[in-house]
Structure formats: C-alpha cells, structure tokens
C-alpha cells in the first residue's frame, strides 16, 4: 500500500480536524435526527416537485411554440400555487417580453434577481430589456455590486452561520480548551486564529447591517408596467400631470393613499401615480402598506 504524506499547514490541519470532530459528533448524537429531518424535507419536496415540474415543462413548451399568452398563464399559475422561483420568474419575464409587455418583463426579471442575484442570464435579459426600451442602465458602485452578489436572506444566513461558528469556537475554548489542543490547535496558534475569526465575523456582521439597509432601500422599488405612467401632483383623478414615465422605468414607492402611490422617481422628486400603473418588485408590498 502506498502512503502519501501531505504537508498541511497548521491552520488547515486545525480546520480539518475540527470538521472531523464535528462530523464524529454528528454521527454520535444527531445522525438519526438528521436523517429524519432529511426524510421529511425530501418527501415534502418530492410531493410538490412532480406537479410543479410538469406545469413548468408545459409552460416551457407553450413558450417554445410561440404561444406566449398560454405560457404566461402557466408560469403565473405556478407562482400562485407554489410561491416564487427564480427560473419561473425569469421565464415569465421572457414570455412577457415576447408578448410585448416590457414593463412586466422587467418586473419579473427584477424579482428573479432578488432570488438569484448572481444569475448572469437574468442580468443579461434585464439589461437587454432595458436597452431595447430605451431605458438607461443603472450604474452601481463596486460595493453595491458586491453586496448584491448575495440576496439579503443569503447574507443573513451567511452571517448567522459565521456568528454561530464564532460562538461555538468561543464556548469550546472556554469550557473545553483541551479539545482544540486535541485537534491540533496549539495554544500559541489559537490566538491568531481567534483574532482572524473575530475579525471576519465583525466584517460579516457589518455587511449584513449594510445589506439590511440596502434591502430596505430597494425593497420598495416598483416598475412601471403600462406604456406610459402619469405622475400626478396629488392623489386624485383630475390632478395635474407633472410628468410621465416610460414602461419599465423604476421608481421608489413611499406610501399609499387610496388607489394612488407616492413614488420617488428622481432624487428629491416625488409624485403620485395610480397603483394600476406600477408594480412593486416585492409582490404585495403595497397591499401591506397602510
């Protein structure tokens, strides 16, 4: 038998050993519970997967046949029955675009992007739809691009994991420091690793705060879904029109009054628009707004 010896630096060795320890612990204490949870999740997933897949394929076939109205209906039903899926929203955006409803196409691309912010297909089609509609491409700073590489939920889970790991290691160090030594983390080494982990956690926590703030900002984003939205001075039918916005343009919904929504369409400029002319990227947000 051939033995291979690898030179592993102490940090890696410590991480590997920690993982092995966690694995052993999981095997000893939580195997049955994990298996049970997996079984429940899997069975519930399978129960819903089959009809959703069938409906998805049917809508895709309708799309491929050029029956865009039928495809739109299929995708909308899927969303209604199962919730939101990035691929369904993306395909729905394509169907709306082919059907000539650019505003709704952009809306659904934006929604898909909220669920899968790193999907290049969604970025490409959103950019294409905006370009074809004569809308300017939003320019974003690098840090916003970085923050948008994960959606707020993903950032939250990442931060939660990092925080839990931090706490776990801290508790182990306090209660059973010999465990760390047993897995190869010597006391002199412990201090720099400890500081590094602490630093990373602080950074992640900072990011989640920033992401949360950004999420609050973008959460009220709305898209014009009619050919031309009239921005009014006041929330009444016969109010004077201040300006108009083209289909697919985005605004920030601030508050609702009757059938009208106060939107911020430029920095420092707000106007009222009929609720039927826009749709928020996060569905039902306006309904929840008093």
């Amino acid at each position, binding site marked *: 038998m051939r033995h291979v010896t690898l030179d592993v630096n102490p940090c890696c060795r410590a991480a590997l050993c920690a993982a092995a320890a966690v694995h052993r612990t999981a095997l000893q204490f939580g195997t049955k519970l994990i298996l049970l949870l997996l079984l429940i999740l899997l069975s519930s997933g399978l129960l819903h997967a089959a009809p959703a897949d069938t409906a998805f394929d049917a809508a895709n076939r309708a799309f491929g046949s050029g029956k865009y109205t039928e495809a739109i209906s299929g995708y909308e039903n899927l969303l209604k029955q199962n919730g939101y899926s990035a*691929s369904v929203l993306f395909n729905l955006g394509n169907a709306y675009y082919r059907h000539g409803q650019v505003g709704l196409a952009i809306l659904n691309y934006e929604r898909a992007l909220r669920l899968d912010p790193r999907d290049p297909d969604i970025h490409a089609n959103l950019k294409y739809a905006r370009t074809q509609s004569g809308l300017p491409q939003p320019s974003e700073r690098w840090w916003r691009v970085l923050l948008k590489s994960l959606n707020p939920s993903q950032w*939250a889970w990442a931060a939660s994991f990092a925080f839990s790991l931090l706490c*776990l290691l801290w508790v182990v160090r306090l209660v059973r420091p010999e465990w760390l030594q047993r897995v190869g983390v010597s006391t002199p080494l412990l201090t720099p690793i400890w500081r590094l982990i602490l630093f990373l956690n602080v950074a992640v926590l900072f990011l989640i705060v920033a992401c949360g703030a950004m999420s609050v900002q973008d959460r009220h984003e709305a898209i014009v879904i009619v050919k031309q939205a009239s921005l009014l001075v006041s929330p009444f039918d016969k109010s004077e029109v201040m300006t108009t916005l083209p289909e697919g343009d985005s605004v920030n919904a601030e508050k609702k009054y009757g059938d009208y929504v106060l939107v911020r369409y430029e920095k420092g400029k707000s106007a009222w628009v009929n609720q039927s002319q826009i749709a928020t990227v996060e569905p039902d947000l306006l309904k929840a707004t008093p």
Partner: protein
Amino acid sequence: MKTMSQTRVYVTAAACMGLLAGLGLLSLRAADVSVRATIEPRQVALGQAAQLTVEVTGASSARISLPQVENLDIVSRGTQSSLQIINGVMAQQSFYVFAVLPNAEGQYVIPSFQVEAGGQKVATAPLALKVFQGQGQAPPPPAVAPATSSPYVAGNTAPDPQAPAPAPRPSTTTPKPVNVGNETVFLRLYSPRNEMVVGQVVPVTVKLYVRADRQAELVPSPLKFLSDAFTVTLPKKLEQDQEMIDNTLYNVGIWNVAVVPVKTGDYTVGVEQSIRVAERVKMRRPGGLDESLLDAMFSQYRMVEKKVQSTTQNWKISSVPNEGKPENFSGAIGDYTLTVKAQPDKVKVGEPISLEMTIDGKGNLDRVNAPVLTSTDGFKTYSPTSKVELRDDLGLEGRKIFTEAVVPLKVGSLPPISFTFFNPDTKQYVTRTVEAPRVAISEAPASPVAAVTPTATPSATQKVEEDAKPAEPALVPIKVYLSPFVANFTPVFRNPLFIAAQGVPLIALVAGFLVARRRQRLENDPDYARTHEANRTVRTQLEAMNTAVARNDAAAFFTAARRAVQFRLADRWRIKADDITFEVISERSTELADSLKSLFLVADEMAYSGEAHTDVTLADWQKAIVSLLGRLEKKV
C-alpha cells in the same frame, strides 16, 4: 377583284424586294420557311368580323389555299412584308391578313390549310372561333363555365407559346362520347390505381366533355363522389382544354382532385356533376319559307340542367398492415426522404440546439409527425413546430419542415434521427434513419457570463420562437430547470424565528462564559482545590475499598479506609492528610476519636505489625466507614 389586284401588287413588290435583296446580298443566307396562323378575337358577336393572320417567315411570297367553312366568309385584307438582316441572316416576313365574317352563331373550326412558300408546303394548325348573338358589347357566358371564377379559355388549336404546359394526366384511352338526352355531354373518372390504403392520398382526374358546338355551363355545385369512403380535395381552379374525338371537337373541363380513403372495403366509385346545357326550342313560323332559314330565324335556346354521371370503377381499400408495423409509425403514407440540419454547431451543456428536420416527398403530408431522436438520454426535447410547403394545390407533394429545440444535459453528441412511413407502392414500412449533424457539446462554463451577454449569438430556442416574432438575437433563452420555490420575498432576517434562533449561540456563549468564570474562580481558591482533591481521593479510596472487600483483602481495605478518612479530615481541618494521626484526632475531637479508634488501631496493626485479622467482617467495616465519611463530608 380590286382586292385581289392589290394583293398581287403587294406580292409583286415583295417579290421584287426579295429579288433585289438576293442580288445585292448574295453572300447572305436565307432563313427557313415557317408559317403561323392566328385568329383574333376568338369570340365575336354575330355581325362582327375576326381577323385571320397568316404569318410567313423566310419567304418572299406565299400562296395560301384557304378552306371553305360553312357560314364563314373569309376575305383578304392585304399583305405586309418586312426584311431584316441580323448577323448576316436574312429574315423576311410577310403577313397575309383576312377578315372572317360569320353568318350565324355557333362554334366554328377553320381546319388546317396549306401555305406554299419558298418552294415548300406548310400546313397551319386548325383555328377555332366562337360566334355569339349580340351587338358585341360584352361576350356571352362561356361554352363551359366553371363554378369557380377561372377564366374560360376557348379552344384554340394553334397552341399559344406563352401558355403553360397542361398538367399531366393518366394515360388512358379517350372514351367515345355518350349521348345524354339530346346533348352530347359525358363525364369520365381516371384513377391511377384501384387498390389503396386508408389515409393514402390518391390523385384522381375527372373530365367533363361537352361538344364544342354546344353551349353549356356548370351548375355552381361541387363535383360529387358517389361514395362516402373518401374525403376529396377539389382543385381551386378548373382546367379547360379541347380534345378532338372522332373528328368532333369537345370542350373539356378537368378536375385534378385528391382522394383520401377513410374506410376499408370494396367500393364502386363514380362521380356526378350538374350542368346546364343549351337546347334548341323551335318556335312557330310562317309557312312556305325556306326551313333552314326559318329555323335560324325562329329558333331560340333554352338552358336545361342535367346531372351527368361517370361510369363507375371498383376500388379496394385496405388498412396498413399490422405485421411489421414499427412502434414509431404515426400514420405517414407515401414516399419520403429525411434531411436534418442543426444550429449552432457548437453549444455548451444547457444551451439549446435547433434541429430542422425536413420530410420531403409524396403522400399525406398533413398526417406526417415529426421524426424522433433514437435516444433522448442526456437531452431534453421540446414539442416541435412545423410548416408545410406544398408543390401543388392538392397537397400531393411537398415538404414538411419540423423545427425542434433540444437541450443537451451532458456532454455528448446528438443521436441519429429516424422517421417511419408506409410506402403503398411497395406495401412495406420504411424507416429512414439519418445521422444527426455534428454538434460539439462542451461543458457549461463555471461562470457563464460570456455566454449570455446581450451581444451573444442567437440561440436555437430563440430561432424556434422567431416563427411568430421578429428576430431578437440577444434575449437569453428560457430556463429548463426549475429552481426552488420560496414563499415570499421578505428577507429571512425579518423573520422573528430567525432572529430568535440567533439567541441560541449567544446563550451558549454566555453559558460558556459563566462556566469558565466559575471554574477559574474555583481553581484560584486553595480551599476549593483541597476539597476537590479530597473528594477525588476519597472516591478513589472508596473504589479501592470495594475491590478489597471483593478480594477479602483486609490489609488493603483498612489502608484505603484510613487514607479516605485522612483526606476527608484534612479537608475539614485544613491540614495535610499525612499529618492526620489518631493522636491528632484525639486532640481535636474525642467523639470522633472514639469512632475512629478501632479503625486506626486495626489499620496500624496490619500495616506495621503484620497481624492478620481474619475474624473481621470487611463488609460491616465498609458500611461503617462509608457512613462515617458521609457524616464528615456534611460537616465540612
């Protein structure tokens, strides 16, 4: 006479010109002689004249022997000549013009006549002329007026070089006319085969013959097949022609129809068509006059509707055989070829390929389904779109183009594509299998940004979609995989449960802090350390006592018991365990000394004098010592 003189003058002049030309241009070659006769118009009203023109090319003069036609007067109107020299070839043309004056209405045929020119005798083609009553403002209905709006073409025996060639017809013997009532009208059905299968498209020709000198028109009702075992596709346009049968000219209406059997069995098949035919009705006339003249003057025509039926044929219709029927046979009957194209020729896994599969040939193209991939393993396929390009109005021949999107799910190559049909001529099933075009399928990139940028090449799926929409090359195709569903867009950190869950590691951390702090505090306290050490030692000695009792080893038992008591008392009195002797105990507590005296005595004896106390019951001692240690611990 005057006219004839003028003709001679023209002929002489033309001859002189030809002679001069021949003398002056001896080196030039003369062209061959050709003759062409035309008549315009082909239909005239009674009282008007038609113009008969005889065109003679390649000769300076000609002698024309015009035929005699009853009720037609043909009068010369003069001659025109021209001379051209093109590329050294002398071309001389002469036009002999005649007026044709009809004396009675009817369908006339000017038979072929001889033209003698340039030492040759050339015959013209027969010419037809229809004469109708009226003042010539508008022509009457055609002799055989089709139900459709196709223009009537009067029979002109001189073929028009611009006219399209007539459609090929089954080579059958032209039947003899059958009298229907008083009119000579008959119908014929021509089929290339008498045995056919259900679903097969069979071309059938139906001809309606009407004698040329009879006026007739079609009733605007479709041609009727006298059997319900077929579906029939009628032509959009009725073809017309003239045929000479036994020296009788017939106007012929031709239906080229497509027949598709729908039921099996033996059937006697015929066709029926309603037609209105002109019948002469004689009127009362004054007596003593010439009968033929009176008939012409006092007769009139009446249109009589008649149903004309063809002779019948026996057709045998069967279904396609079950024996040897391939699984993927979908009802295509005929003879076809299959070609396949694919675009693009390089894709990555997950990108669609557009397959264009063309079925070309004769048969029931409308029932042809798409060819299939012989294996769909590793591919996701979508329903194909199709379009039919027919080469005739009846759908007998053409091609059907299927466009299908195929998405590779793994690296590999496209499988062969097959198509199955039943050939009614060979009565066998035929499967055409072609190798799919080579498409290089590579792994999808880890970061597919470049493949989906808006300037990317249009994908195959897009091209499928472009049937209904103009080209939009930059839209990335739809996704074929379903991504997970989420209930809503609310970020998870807004969920109270998620927030509460973050308290778990925090609580663990706090608990860890507390535990560590307590432990540190205790470790820094000497009393705690002594008590901890005493407890540990007492537990150890108790275990040793148990072992000794089990072995009935009194020496080991009492040694362990004394040691346990020493540690317990040392912890209590905060002195070293080795300093605990019976004397020390007696000084500090007489009560305790009484209890422990016998223990220390026996232990010392066994330890130092080696005396064995075999009469001692260790179990009783153990109970007493454990009880004592318990009391001492509580007091501590």
